[in-house]
């Protein structure tokens, strides 16, 4: 990277001290500095573009030799003379596990955010917010081994119970015996992982509700819940939506936690309690070691789909946020 030592740009001697030109941009130092900083801005765009270009290039190499249909084949076998692979299972697993994660995490995260911003005793609120931010920093592989070695055995009872009482919903029917290494468990783990980010962005938004609105509601005799329903939630709605989208973006691309917990199989089954299924990122992690060069290209092809998926979700989230610039989740 050419621009790796910007700070050490040698100080240019102030040449024109006596007759300063009216335009500051005429000075050499300014030009260099502007060039460097604009250059690194452009470099970012180049990186984004080249991610798309390189992934697409390698992906087309693989997909053009795919004997099956890349979108509908229920198999991943990119070896030999007749390579067959498709992303149907991965797309299904990724979306299902993310939906489960969102369904669990978003209501709870909004609850915690409200708890921190409006319910918790003052002395408790600040440390709590701090702890939530710290939890966002726990690496995903740690969540992964915790999920696999601790959560999975604990969830078995819950799975049986769900099957017993809600088996009639078809979705929650457990038709195969086996440990709880299912898409449902993955969804729960992902929910726990995205809780901190959704919480901290939502909390920021709730704290920005104009105090006047809340006090006005209180002055009219509203209970605390009525204050929240009438002034806090309407104000924070778009912020919560974009926070959820950020969380969704993370859930879609999560690799290690899914790879450790799921016992993968290439079937599409709406019975989410059954072990099996797969996600894009998990499949890449699991198949990478045994893949030859062509197999890697095939994995890159699936990665390209994941890239597009997260791009769409994040882009949408950003467009919603763009209306209110102040809440950005990037620092959370």
């Amino acid at each position, binding site marked *: 990277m050419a621009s790796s030592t910007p700070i050490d740009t040698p100080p240019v001697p102030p040449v024109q001290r006596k007759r300063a030109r009216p335009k500051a941009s005429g000075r050499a130092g300014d030009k260099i500095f502007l060039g460097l900083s604009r250059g690194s801005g452009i470099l970012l*765009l180049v990186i984004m573009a080249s*991610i798309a270009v390189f992934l697409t290039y390698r992906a087309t190499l693989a997909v053009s030799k795919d004997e099956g249909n890349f979108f509908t084949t229920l198999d991943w076998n990119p070896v030999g003379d007749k390579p067959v692979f498709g992303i149907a299972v991965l797309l299904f697993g990724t979306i299902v596990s993310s939906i489960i994660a969102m369904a669990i995490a978003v209501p709870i995260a909004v609850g915690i955010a409200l708890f921190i911003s409006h319910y918790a005793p003052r002395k408790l609120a600040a440390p709590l917010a701090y702890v939530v931010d710290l939890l966002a920093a726990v690496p995903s592989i740690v969540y992964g*081994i*915790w999920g696999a070695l601790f959560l999975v055995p604990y969830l078995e009872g819950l799975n049986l119970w769900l099957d017993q009482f809600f088996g009639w919903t078809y979705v929650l029917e457990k038709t195969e015996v086996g440990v709880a290494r299912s898409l449902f468990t993955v969804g729960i783990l992902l929910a726990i992982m995205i809780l901190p980010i959704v919480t901290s962005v939502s909390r920021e938004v709730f704290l920005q509700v104009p105090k006047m609105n809340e006090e*006005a509601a209180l002055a009219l005799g509203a209970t605390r819940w*009525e204050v929240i329903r009438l002034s806090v939630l*309407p104000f924070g709605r778009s912020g919560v939506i974009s926070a959820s989208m950020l969380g969704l973006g993370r859930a879609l*691309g999560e690799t290690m936690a899914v790879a450790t917990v799921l016992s993968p199989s290439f079937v599409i089954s709406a019975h989410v309690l059954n072990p099996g299924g797969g996600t894009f*990122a998990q499949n890449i992690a699991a198949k990478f070691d045994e893949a030859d060069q062509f197999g890697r290209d095939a994995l890159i092809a699936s990665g390209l789909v994941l890239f597009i998926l997260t791009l769409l979700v994040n882009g949408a989230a950003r467009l919603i946020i763009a209306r209110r610039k102040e809440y950005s989740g990037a620092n959370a």
Partner: protein
Amino acid sequence: MSQAANTGIQERPVPTAAASRNSLSSRSLPRWAPAAFAGAAIVLGVGIGAAAGWQSRIQWGLLSAVLFVVISYVTTSVVENQRQAKDRLATSIVWVCFLLAVVPLASLVWTTVSRGAKVLDVYFLTHSMAGVLGTAPGGGVYHALIGTLEQVGLATLISAPIGLLTAVYLVEYGKGALAKAVTFFVDVMTGIPSIVAGLFILSIMLIAQLQPSGLMGSLALTILMIPVVVRSTEEMLKLVPNELREASLALGVPKWRTILKVVLPTAIGGITTGVMLAIARIAGETAPIMLLVFGSQLINPNPFQGAQSSLPFYIWEQYKIGSEASYDRAWAAALVLIAFVMILNLVARGIARWKAPKTGR
């Protein structure tokens, strides 16, 4: 917004004066009522759970939570009125949400600490896995520690300047289509999954016929780190008061010197914090390392050549071996990694508080 709030309240049939008179004279629950409800719900939940023979305590907890919400609602609507009952319902749901989230997160931290402390000692930190059978006890994390430090260090060296300059461009120079595009794509870039960043470098490696090395991993980490640095630096630069810039420019100081000598020093505390938080974030990334650095059991201090290990990758490796001894090592490494990340976080936030940008005077 405020209009909606007002009309909502005004539609209420009960005049406020009457309501307040009511609440003074009407019956209300004592202050200790929620605690009593919680106690009753837990007793009931555990009782029913034990009686029905449910194995996992998760069910007991869930049942208690539901019972708590129901009991609070019903009791309040009987003793007080419907509005108070709804308020109580919301309050108890929010508390339940909070507890639901705290339990797994506390359990995660507790499990890591208690299981990781078993094999974590000086020997573990200063020895590699060379010559240690995966399923046998012994060995350590030294090679992974070296790998993590070098890869993260390289990534920081590359991405901190780029991120800083980009943020300077956006705040100090940025106008027009280019700045808008950069802002948007920085935001989108924060959402790139780490495995996609890894695949991108992998595709370059496949084209250029490069071998796995620590540097390749660093490049992928760079892609993940730059947007975080840009965002946090941008926020900090925006906090620098304009009067400082104007004062400097009015003295005839060129803009680039103003930025280097006035703007950046003012915000340096916040910028350091942002960079450290970004480091903490990428230090835990496993996927790119797995694709690009390949992992190794031996100490390889050269990040430019040959396979290396890293802490998160080491955890994954040990988990995959699947024996009791390797699980122990995985937990210990997880504890080291969490401690590393947490210390970075705490120090970063300490610096942020200590050197908060001086707004106003």
